[in-house]
Protein backbone atom coordinates (compact mmCIF):
# COMPACT_ATOMS: atom_id res chain seq x y z
CA UNK A 1 0.00 0.00 0.00
CA UNK A 2 2.72 2.46 0.93
CA UNK A 3 4.68 1.49 -2.15
CA UNK A 4 1.77 2.19 -4.37
CA UNK A 5 1.31 5.65 -3.05
CA UNK A 6 4.95 6.56 -3.46
CA UNK A 7 4.53 6.54 -7.18
CA UNK A 8 2.50 9.67 -7.10
CA UNK A 9 2.76 11.35 -3.73
CA UNK A 10 5.65 13.66 -2.96
CA UNK A 11 6.66 12.41 0.45
CA UNK A 12 8.85 15.44 1.07
CA UNK A 13 5.91 17.77 1.01
CA UNK A 14 5.18 19.20 4.45
CA UNK A 15 1.48 18.85 3.86
CA UNK A 16 1.78 15.20 2.97
CA UNK A 17 3.78 14.55 6.11
CA UNK A 18 1.12 16.15 8.23
CA UNK A 19 -1.64 14.21 6.52
CA UNK A 20 0.16 10.88 6.95
CA UNK A 21 -0.35 11.43 10.67
CA UNK A 22 -4.02 12.21 10.29
CA UNK A 23 -4.55 9.10 8.24
CA UNK A 24 -3.72 6.84 11.17
CA UNK A 25 -5.74 8.85 13.62
CA UNK A 26 -8.83 8.97 11.44
CA UNK A 27 -8.62 5.29 10.60
CA UNK A 28 -8.21 4.37 14.26
CA UNK A 29 -11.29 6.37 15.17
CA UNK A 30 -13.34 4.99 12.32
CA UNK A 31 -12.29 1.45 13.07
CA UNK A 32 -13.20 1.83 16.70
CA UNK A 33 -16.52 3.30 15.65
CA UNK A 34 -17.11 0.37 13.31
CA UNK A 35 -16.26 -2.16 16.01
CA UNK A 36 -18.60 -0.43 18.44
CA UNK A 37 -21.39 -0.37 15.86
CA UNK A 38 -20.86 -4.07 15.40
CA UNK A 39 -20.99 -4.77 19.14
CA UNK A 40 -24.00 -2.53 19.46
CA UNK A 41 -25.74 -4.39 16.67
CA UNK A 42 -25.02 -7.69 18.35
CA UNK A 43 -26.39 -6.33 21.62
CA UNK A 44 -29.52 -5.24 19.78
CA UNK A 45 -30.03 -8.65 18.22
CA UNK A 46 -29.45 -10.50 21.49
CA UNK A 47 -31.73 -8.13 23.36
CA UNK A 48 -34.48 -8.47 20.80
CA UNK A 49 -34.21 -12.23 21.09
CA UNK A 50 -34.45 -11.99 24.85
CA UNK A 51 -37.59 -9.89 24.52
CA UNK A 52 -39.06 -12.40 22.08
CA UNK A 53 -38.29 -15.16 24.52
CA UNK A 54 -39.87 -13.25 27.40
CA UNK A 55 -43.09 -12.82 25.46
CA UNK A 56 -43.61 -16.55 25.87
CA UNK A 57 -43.93 -15.89 29.56
CA UNK A 58 -47.53 -15.93 30.72
CA UNK A 59 -47.64 -13.62 33.66
CA UNK A 60 -50.21 -14.36 36.35
CA UNK A 61 -50.56 -17.96 35.36
CA UNK A 62 -48.66 -20.60 37.26
CA UNK A 63 -47.46 -22.24 34.11
CA UNK A 64 -44.47 -24.27 34.94
CA UNK A 65 -42.74 -22.94 31.85
CA UNK A 66 -42.59 -19.47 33.35
CA UNK A 67 -39.64 -20.05 35.64
CA UNK A 68 -37.75 -21.71 32.91
CA UNK A 69 -38.32 -18.79 30.57
CA UNK A 70 -37.16 -16.30 33.16
CA UNK A 71 -34.05 -18.35 33.82
CA UNK A 72 -33.25 -18.60 30.14
CA UNK A 73 -33.69 -14.88 29.77
CA UNK A 74 -31.45 -14.23 32.74
CA UNK A 75 -28.74 -16.36 31.13
CA UNK A 76 -29.03 -14.44 27.89
CA UNK A 77 -28.80 -11.14 29.70
CA UNK A 78 -25.72 -12.27 31.62
CA UNK A 79 -24.17 -13.27 28.35
CA UNK A 80 -24.82 -9.87 26.83
CA UNK A 81 -23.22 -8.25 29.84
CA UNK A 82 -20.18 -10.45 30.11
CA UNK A 83 -19.36 -10.72 26.44
CA UNK A 84 -20.81 -7.81 24.52
CA UNK A 85 -20.70 -5.08 27.11
CA UNK A 86 -17.30 -6.08 28.42
CA UNK A 87 -15.94 -5.76 24.90
CA UNK A 88 -17.63 -2.39 24.62
CA UNK A 89 -16.16 -1.22 27.90
CA UNK A 90 -12.71 -2.25 26.76
CA UNK A 91 -13.08 -0.33 23.54
CA UNK A 92 -14.17 2.73 25.46
CA UNK A 93 -11.45 2.61 28.08
CA UNK A 94 -9.98 6.08 28.36
CA UNK A 95 -12.34 7.52 25.75
CA UNK A 96 -14.96 10.19 26.04
CA UNK A 97 -17.92 7.80 25.79
CA UNK A 98 -20.10 10.46 24.22
CA UNK A 99 -17.83 10.53 21.17
CA UNK A 100 -19.16 7.10 20.23
CA UNK A 101 -22.65 7.46 21.64
CA UNK A 102 -24.23 7.28 18.22
CA UNK A 103 -22.61 3.90 17.71
CA UNK A 104 -23.52 2.35 21.05
CA UNK A 105 -26.83 4.03 21.77
CA UNK A 106 -29.13 1.72 19.75
CA UNK A 107 -27.77 -1.40 21.42
CA UNK A 108 -27.81 0.13 24.85
CA UNK A 109 -31.42 1.22 24.54
CA UNK A 110 -32.53 -2.16 23.31
CA UNK A 111 -30.65 -3.80 26.18
CA UNK A 112 -32.31 -1.51 28.72
CA UNK A 113 -35.63 -2.43 27.16
CA UNK A 114 -34.83 -6.12 27.52
CA UNK A 115 -33.50 -6.09 31.08
CA UNK A 116 -36.29 -3.85 32.33
CA UNK A 117 -38.84 -6.12 30.68
CA UNK A 118 -37.24 -9.11 32.37
CA UNK A 119 -37.19 -7.27 35.68
CA UNK A 120 -40.82 -6.31 35.37
CA UNK A 121 -41.91 -9.87 34.71
CA UNK A 122 -39.77 -11.15 37.55
CA UNK A 123 -40.48 -8.50 40.19
CA UNK A 124 -43.42 -6.49 38.89
CA UNK A 125 -41.30 -3.39 39.40
CA UNK A 126 -39.31 -0.89 37.42
CA UNK A 127 -35.60 -1.60 37.41
CA UNK A 128 -33.58 1.38 38.60
CA UNK A 129 -30.74 3.04 36.74
CA UNK A 130 -28.43 2.04 39.57
CA UNK A 131 -29.24 -1.58 39.19
CA UNK A 132 -28.60 -1.45 35.47
CA UNK A 133 -25.35 0.38 36.03
CA UNK A 134 -24.21 -2.14 38.68
CA UNK A 135 -24.18 -4.95 36.12
CA UNK A 136 -21.94 -2.97 33.79
CA UNK A 137 -18.94 -2.60 36.03
CA UNK A 138 -16.26 -5.10 35.11
CA UNK A 139 -13.12 -6.10 36.83
CA UNK A 140 -10.27 -6.98 34.55
CA UNK A 141 -6.75 -8.16 35.04
CA UNK A 142 -4.41 -5.75 33.31
CA UNK A 143 -0.98 -6.41 31.81
CA UNK A 144 0.63 -5.53 35.11
CA UNK A 145 -1.39 -8.32 36.72
CA UNK A 146 -3.25 -5.67 38.71
CA UNK A 147 -6.99 -5.77 38.85
CA UNK A 148 -8.60 -2.89 37.06
CA UNK A 149 -12.18 -1.67 37.19
CA UNK A 150 -13.86 -0.92 33.88
CA UNK A 151 -17.16 0.93 34.01
CA UNK A 152 -19.51 1.23 31.08
CA UNK A 153 -21.42 4.36 31.85
CA UNK A 154 -25.21 4.33 31.28
CA UNK A 155 -26.38 7.91 30.69
CA UNK A 156 -29.75 8.67 32.27
CA UNK A 157 -31.09 9.68 28.89
CA UNK A 158 -30.41 6.27 27.42
CA UNK A 159 -32.18 4.81 30.43
CA UNK A 160 -35.23 6.96 29.75
CA UNK A 161 -35.24 6.11 26.07
CA UNK A 162 -34.98 2.42 26.87
CA UNK A 163 -37.96 2.74 29.22
CA UNK A 164 -39.95 4.48 26.53
CA UNK A 165 -39.44 1.39 24.39
CA UNK A 166 -40.31 -0.88 27.29
CA UNK A 167 -43.83 0.53 27.24
CA UNK A 168 -44.31 -0.93 23.77
CA UNK A 169 -43.38 -4.37 25.04
CA UNK A 170 -45.70 -4.00 28.02
CA UNK A 171 -48.47 -3.15 25.61
CA UNK A 172 -47.78 -6.36 23.68
CA UNK A 173 -47.70 -8.24 26.97
CA UNK A 174 -51.15 -6.86 27.74
CA UNK A 175 -52.56 -7.93 24.42
CA UNK A 176 -51.11 -11.41 24.89
CA UNK A 177 -52.42 -11.56 28.46
CA UNK A 178 -55.94 -10.69 27.41
CA UNK A 179 -55.76 -13.48 24.89
CA UNK A 180 -54.54 -15.87 27.55
CA UNK A 181 -57.41 -14.95 29.85
CA UNK A 182 -55.09 -13.38 32.37
CA UNK A 183 -57.07 -10.70 34.13
CA UNK A 184 -54.67 -9.17 36.57
CA UNK A 185 -51.70 -8.21 34.45
CA UNK A 186 -53.55 -5.79 32.16
CA UNK A 187 -54.74 -3.66 35.05
CA UNK A 188 -51.31 -3.64 36.67
CA UNK A 189 -49.64 -2.66 33.42
CA UNK A 190 -52.26 -0.02 32.78
CA UNK A 191 -51.43 1.69 36.06
CA UNK A 192 -47.72 1.33 35.40
CA UNK A 193 -48.00 2.91 31.98
CA UNK A 194 -50.17 5.75 33.27
CA UNK A 195 -47.44 6.70 35.72
CA UNK A 196 -44.71 6.48 33.10
CA UNK A 197 -46.82 8.48 30.69
CA UNK A 198 -47.54 11.22 33.22
CA UNK A 199 -43.86 11.38 34.18
CA UNK A 200 -42.61 11.62 30.61
CA UNK A 201 -45.26 14.20 29.89
CA UNK A 202 -44.10 16.31 32.79
CA UNK A 203 -40.59 16.42 31.35
CA UNK A 204 -41.87 18.49 28.49
CA UNK A 205 -39.89 19.06 25.34
CA UNK A 206 -36.50 18.78 26.97
CA UNK A 207 -35.50 15.73 25.02
CA UNK A 208 -35.83 15.50 21.29
CA UNK A 209 -35.45 11.73 21.08
CA UNK A 210 -37.97 11.26 23.83
CA UNK A 211 -40.45 13.49 22.06
CA UNK A 212 -40.23 11.23 19.09
CA UNK A 213 -41.18 8.28 21.24
CA UNK A 214 -44.02 10.01 23.09
CA UNK A 215 -46.48 9.36 20.29
CA UNK A 216 -45.83 5.64 20.48
CA UNK A 217 -46.02 5.72 24.24
CA UNK A 218 -49.40 7.43 24.12
CA UNK A 219 -50.66 4.89 21.62
CA UNK A 220 -49.44 2.02 23.78
CA UNK A 221 -51.20 3.47 26.80
CA UNK A 222 -54.44 3.88 24.89
CA UNK A 223 -54.20 0.32 23.63
CA UNK A 224 -53.67 -0.97 27.15
CA UNK A 225 -56.57 1.10 28.46
CA UNK A 226 -58.75 -0.24 25.69
CA UNK A 227 -57.69 -3.77 26.51
CA UNK A 228 -58.62 -3.30 30.16
CA UNK A 229 -61.89 -1.78 29.05
CA UNK A 230 -62.61 -4.77 26.84
CA UNK A 231 -61.76 -7.15 29.65
CA UNK A 232 -64.05 -5.23 31.93
CA UNK A 233 -67.13 -5.03 29.74
CA UNK A 234 -66.71 -8.63 28.62
CA UNK A 235 -66.10 -9.78 32.18
CA UNK A 236 -69.38 -8.15 33.14
CA UNK A 237 -71.25 -10.68 31.06
CA UNK A 238 -70.04 -13.82 32.76
CA UNK A 239 -72.93 -15.71 34.29
CA UNK A 240 -72.26 -16.01 38.01
CA UNK A 241 -72.32 -19.81 37.97
CA UNK A 242 -69.59 -19.94 35.37
CA UNK A 243 -67.31 -17.53 37.06
CA UNK A 244 -64.96 -19.91 38.84
CA UNK A 245 -64.80 -21.97 35.72
CA UNK A 246 -63.70 -19.23 33.37
CA UNK A 247 -61.30 -17.46 35.67
CA UNK A 248 -59.86 -20.37 37.48
CA UNK A 249 -56.39 -19.18 36.62
CA UNK A 250 -56.90 -15.90 38.42
CA UNK A 251 -57.31 -16.16 42.18
CA UNK A 252 -58.46 -12.60 42.29
CA UNK A 253 -62.17 -11.85 42.55
CA UNK A 254 -62.02 -8.11 42.65
CA UNK A 255 -63.87 -8.15 39.36
CA UNK A 256 -66.84 -9.95 40.79
CA UNK A 257 -68.36 -6.70 41.94
CA UNK A 258 -68.62 -5.54 38.39
CA UNK A 259 -70.74 -8.45 37.36
CA UNK A 260 -74.35 -7.49 37.06
Amino acid at each position, binding site marked *: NDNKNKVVVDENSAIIKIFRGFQGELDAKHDKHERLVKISRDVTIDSKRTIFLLHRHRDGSDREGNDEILNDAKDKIKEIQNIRFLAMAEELEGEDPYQFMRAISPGMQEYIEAISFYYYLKHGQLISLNEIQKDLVFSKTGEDEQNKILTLNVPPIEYLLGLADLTGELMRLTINSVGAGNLETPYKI*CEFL*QIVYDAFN*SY*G*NTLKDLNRKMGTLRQSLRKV*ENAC*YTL*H*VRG*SEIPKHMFADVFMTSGDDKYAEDVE
Partner: protein
Amino acid sequence: MDVSDTLTATFTELQGYLQAEQQLREDIRFAVRDIEQTTREIQKVLQAIHQPQGLTKIALVCENSRKLFKDVQDQIKILSDKIPANQYYKYHDHWKFAIQRLAFLAALVIFLETEQLIDRQTAADIIGVKVSKEDGFHVDLDDYLMGLLQLASELSRLAVNAVIAGDYARPLQISSFLGELESGFRLLNLKNDALRKRFDALKYDVKKVEEVVYDLSIRGLKPSTET
Protein backbone atom coordinates in the same frame (compact mmCIF):
# COMPACT_ATOMS: atom_id res chain seq x y z
CA MET B 1 -14.56 56.00 1.57
CA ASP B 2 -17.92 57.66 1.81
CA VAL B 3 -20.21 54.90 0.61
CA SER B 4 -18.47 52.37 2.75
CA ASP B 5 -18.82 54.43 5.93
CA THR B 6 -22.51 55.14 5.47
CA LEU B 7 -23.12 51.51 4.71
CA THR B 8 -21.31 50.37 7.82
CA ALA B 9 -23.23 52.86 9.91
CA THR B 10 -26.52 51.68 8.45
CA PHE B 11 -25.79 48.04 9.08
CA THR B 12 -24.49 48.68 12.57
CA GLU B 13 -27.80 50.32 13.34
CA LEU B 14 -29.71 47.44 11.81
CA GLN B 15 -27.68 45.00 13.85
CA GLY B 16 -28.91 46.88 16.91
CA TYR B 17 -32.52 46.26 15.90
CA LEU B 18 -31.89 42.64 15.16
CA GLN B 19 -30.14 42.12 18.46
CA ALA B 20 -32.98 43.72 20.39
CA GLU B 21 -35.47 41.50 18.62
CA GLN B 22 -33.34 38.46 19.24
CA GLN B 23 -33.14 39.34 22.90
CA LEU B 24 -36.90 39.74 23.03
CA ARG B 25 -37.38 36.32 21.48
CA GLU B 26 -35.01 34.91 24.06
CA ASP B 27 -37.02 36.53 26.85
CA ILE B 28 -40.27 35.24 25.40
CA ARG B 29 -38.83 31.77 25.16
CA PHE B 30 -37.98 31.82 28.84
CA ALA B 31 -41.33 33.20 29.88
CA VAL B 32 -43.15 30.62 27.77
CA ARG B 33 -41.00 27.88 29.21
CA ASP B 34 -42.18 28.76 32.68
CA ILE B 35 -45.79 28.74 31.53
CA GLU B 36 -45.31 25.38 29.91
CA GLN B 37 -43.84 24.04 33.11
CA THR B 38 -46.90 25.02 35.12
CA THR B 39 -49.14 23.78 32.32
CA ARG B 40 -47.53 20.38 32.58
CA GLU B 41 -48.12 20.40 36.32
CA ILE B 42 -51.80 21.17 35.84
CA GLN B 43 -52.03 18.42 33.29
CA LYS B 44 -50.40 16.00 35.69
CA VAL B 45 -52.90 16.89 38.40
CA LEU B 46 -55.80 16.38 36.01
CA GLN B 47 -54.48 13.09 34.68
CA ALA B 48 -55.59 11.59 37.99
CA ILE B 49 -59.15 11.36 36.65
CA HIS B 50 -58.11 8.45 34.46
CA GLN B 51 -56.95 6.38 37.41
CA PRO B 52 -59.19 3.82 39.09
CA GLN B 53 -60.14 6.06 42.02
CA GLY B 54 -59.84 9.25 40.03
CA LEU B 55 -63.47 9.97 39.38
CA THR B 56 -64.26 9.96 43.09
CA LYS B 57 -61.82 12.79 43.69
CA ILE B 58 -62.94 15.22 41.04
CA ALA B 59 -63.63 18.11 43.39
CA LEU B 60 -60.16 17.90 44.88
CA VAL B 61 -58.49 17.54 41.51
CA CYS B 62 -60.25 20.61 40.15
CA GLU B 63 -59.40 22.64 43.21
CA ASN B 64 -55.74 21.75 42.89
CA SER B 65 -55.69 22.68 39.23
CA ARG B 66 -57.30 25.99 39.91
CA LYS B 67 -54.53 26.80 42.38
CA LEU B 68 -51.95 26.17 39.70
CA PHE B 69 -53.93 28.28 37.26
CA LYS B 70 -53.32 31.18 39.62
CA ASP B 71 -49.59 30.73 38.95
CA VAL B 72 -50.26 30.62 35.26
CA GLN B 73 -52.03 33.95 35.47
CA ASP B 74 -48.93 35.53 37.00
CA GLN B 75 -46.67 33.97 34.41
CA ILE B 76 -48.91 35.14 31.60
CA LYS B 77 -48.70 38.64 33.03
CA ILE B 78 -44.90 38.49 32.88
CA LEU B 79 -45.04 37.32 29.29
CA SER B 80 -47.63 39.79 28.10
CA ASP B 81 -45.75 42.71 29.64
CA LYS B 82 -42.88 41.93 27.31
CA ILE B 83 -44.89 42.06 24.10
CA PRO B 84 -44.98 45.50 22.47
CA ALA B 85 -48.32 46.77 21.28
CA ASN B 86 -49.08 45.60 17.74
CA GLN B 87 -46.77 42.65 17.93
CA TYR B 88 -48.89 39.90 19.49
CA TYR B 89 -49.07 38.06 16.21
CA LYS B 90 -45.40 38.57 15.41
CA TYR B 91 -44.53 36.20 18.23
CA HIS B 92 -47.77 34.27 18.37
CA ASP B 93 -46.09 31.03 17.31
CA HIS B 94 -44.05 31.06 20.49
CA TRP B 95 -47.00 30.67 22.85
CA LYS B 96 -49.77 29.40 20.61
CA PHE B 97 -49.40 25.79 21.64
CA ALA B 98 -49.14 26.69 25.33
CA ILE B 99 -52.34 28.72 25.15
CA GLN B 100 -54.16 25.94 23.32
CA ARG B 101 -53.11 23.52 25.99
CA LEU B 102 -54.23 25.89 28.74
CA ALA B 103 -57.57 26.44 27.02
CA PHE B 104 -57.99 22.69 26.90
CA LEU B 105 -57.15 22.25 30.58
CA ALA B 106 -59.45 25.08 31.63
CA ALA B 107 -62.22 23.50 29.55
CA LEU B 108 -61.60 20.17 31.22
CA VAL B 109 -61.88 21.69 34.69
CA ILE B 110 -65.14 23.41 33.77
CA PHE B 111 -66.52 20.22 32.27
CA LEU B 112 -65.64 18.22 35.35
CA GLU B 113 -67.16 20.82 37.64
CA THR B 114 -70.29 21.70 35.68
CA GLU B 115 -70.65 19.32 32.71
CA GLN B 116 -70.86 22.45 30.60
CA LEU B 117 -68.83 23.82 27.73
CA ILE B 118 -66.45 26.55 28.83
CA ASP B 119 -67.13 29.87 27.14
CA ARG B 120 -64.34 32.10 25.86
CA GLN B 121 -64.68 34.63 28.66
CA THR B 122 -64.35 31.95 31.32
CA ALA B 123 -61.42 30.40 29.53
CA ALA B 124 -59.71 33.77 29.26
CA ASP B 125 -60.35 34.49 32.95
CA ILE B 126 -58.93 31.19 34.12
CA ILE B 127 -55.82 31.55 31.96
CA GLY B 128 -55.40 35.21 32.75
CA VAL B 129 -55.73 36.71 29.29
CA LYS B 130 -58.20 38.93 27.47
CA VAL B 131 -60.96 37.67 25.20
CA SER B 132 -60.64 40.21 22.47
CA LYS B 133 -57.67 41.20 20.35
CA GLU B 134 -58.38 44.85 20.93
CA ASP B 135 -57.74 44.55 24.67
CA GLY B 136 -54.20 43.19 24.36
CA PHE B 137 -52.81 39.81 25.20
CA HIS B 138 -55.71 37.53 24.43
CA VAL B 139 -56.61 33.98 23.57
CA ASP B 140 -56.86 33.73 19.81
CA LEU B 141 -60.14 32.24 18.62
CA ASP B 142 -58.42 29.44 16.74
CA ASP B 143 -56.44 28.52 19.84
CA TYR B 144 -59.58 28.41 21.96
CA LEU B 145 -61.20 26.09 19.43
CA MET B 146 -58.12 23.90 19.37
CA GLY B 147 -58.39 23.63 23.13
CA LEU B 148 -61.99 22.40 22.77
CA LEU B 149 -60.96 19.77 20.26
CA GLN B 150 -58.24 18.55 22.60
CA LEU B 151 -60.91 18.31 25.27
CA ALA B 152 -62.88 15.96 23.04
CA SER B 153 -59.96 13.52 22.79
CA GLU B 154 -59.40 13.64 26.50
CA LEU B 155 -63.06 12.92 27.20
CA SER B 156 -63.14 10.01 24.80
CA ARG B 157 -60.25 8.54 26.77
CA LEU B 158 -62.08 9.31 30.00
CA ALA B 159 -65.15 7.41 28.79
CA VAL B 160 -63.03 4.28 28.49
CA ASN B 161 -61.36 4.72 31.84
CA ALA B 162 -64.64 5.52 33.56
CA VAL B 163 -65.98 2.14 32.51
CA ILE B 164 -62.86 0.47 33.92
CA ALA B 165 -63.52 2.31 37.16
CA GLY B 166 -67.10 1.03 37.09
CA ASP B 167 -68.71 4.38 36.36
CA TYR B 168 -71.23 3.60 33.63
CA ALA B 169 -73.03 6.92 33.67
CA ARG B 170 -70.07 9.06 32.70
CA PRO B 171 -69.79 7.70 29.13
CA LEU B 172 -73.40 8.63 28.46
CA GLN B 173 -72.82 12.13 29.74
CA ILE B 174 -69.66 12.44 27.63
CA SER B 175 -71.36 11.04 24.55
CA SER B 176 -74.10 13.57 24.78
CA PHE B 177 -71.62 16.43 25.38
CA LEU B 178 -69.44 15.43 22.43
CA GLY B 179 -72.48 15.12 20.21
CA GLU B 180 -73.37 18.71 21.04
CA LEU B 181 -69.79 19.81 20.49
CA GLU B 182 -69.69 18.13 17.11
CA SER B 183 -72.91 19.86 16.08
CA GLY B 184 -71.41 23.14 17.18
CA PHE B 185 -68.28 22.63 15.12
CA ARG B 186 -70.34 21.68 12.13
CA LEU B 187 -71.71 25.19 12.10
CA LEU B 188 -68.24 26.59 11.61
CA ASN B 189 -66.67 27.03 8.24
CA LEU B 190 -63.17 26.06 9.21
CA LYS B 191 -60.50 27.40 6.93
CA ASN B 192 -57.57 26.85 9.27
CA ASP B 193 -55.96 23.62 8.14
CA ALA B 194 -54.80 22.54 11.59
CA LEU B 195 -58.28 23.05 13.04
CA ARG B 196 -59.95 21.23 10.19
CA LYS B 197 -57.63 18.27 10.58
CA ARG B 198 -58.21 18.21 14.31
CA PHE B 199 -61.96 18.39 13.68
CA ASP B 200 -61.68 15.11 11.79
CA ALA B 201 -60.22 13.62 14.97
CA LEU B 202 -63.29 14.89 16.83
CA LYS B 203 -65.54 12.79 14.62
CA TYR B 204 -63.42 9.82 15.55
CA ASP B 205 -63.64 10.69 19.25
CA VAL B 206 -67.43 10.91 19.05
CA LYS B 207 -67.59 7.53 17.36
CA LYS B 208 -65.29 6.02 19.94
CA VAL B 209 -67.54 7.16 22.79
CA GLU B 210 -70.63 5.95 20.95
CA GLU B 211 -69.02 2.55 20.80
CA VAL B 212 -68.44 2.61 24.53
CA VAL B 213 -72.09 3.44 25.10
CA TYR B 214 -72.96 0.70 22.63
CA ASP B 215 -70.88 -1.83 24.57
CA LEU B 216 -72.70 -0.85 27.75
CA SER B 217 -76.12 -0.94 26.08
CA ILE B 218 -75.81 -4.34 24.53
CA ARG B 219 -74.75 -5.81 27.85
CA GLY B 220 -77.54 -4.10 29.74
CA LEU B 221 -75.08 -1.99 31.71
CA LYS B 222 -76.42 1.34 30.54
CA PRO B 223 -77.91 3.19 33.52
CA SER B 224 -81.61 3.61 32.91
CA THR B 225 -81.85 7.05 34.52
CA GLU B 226 -81.00 8.57 31.22
CA THR B 227 -83.88 9.35 28.90
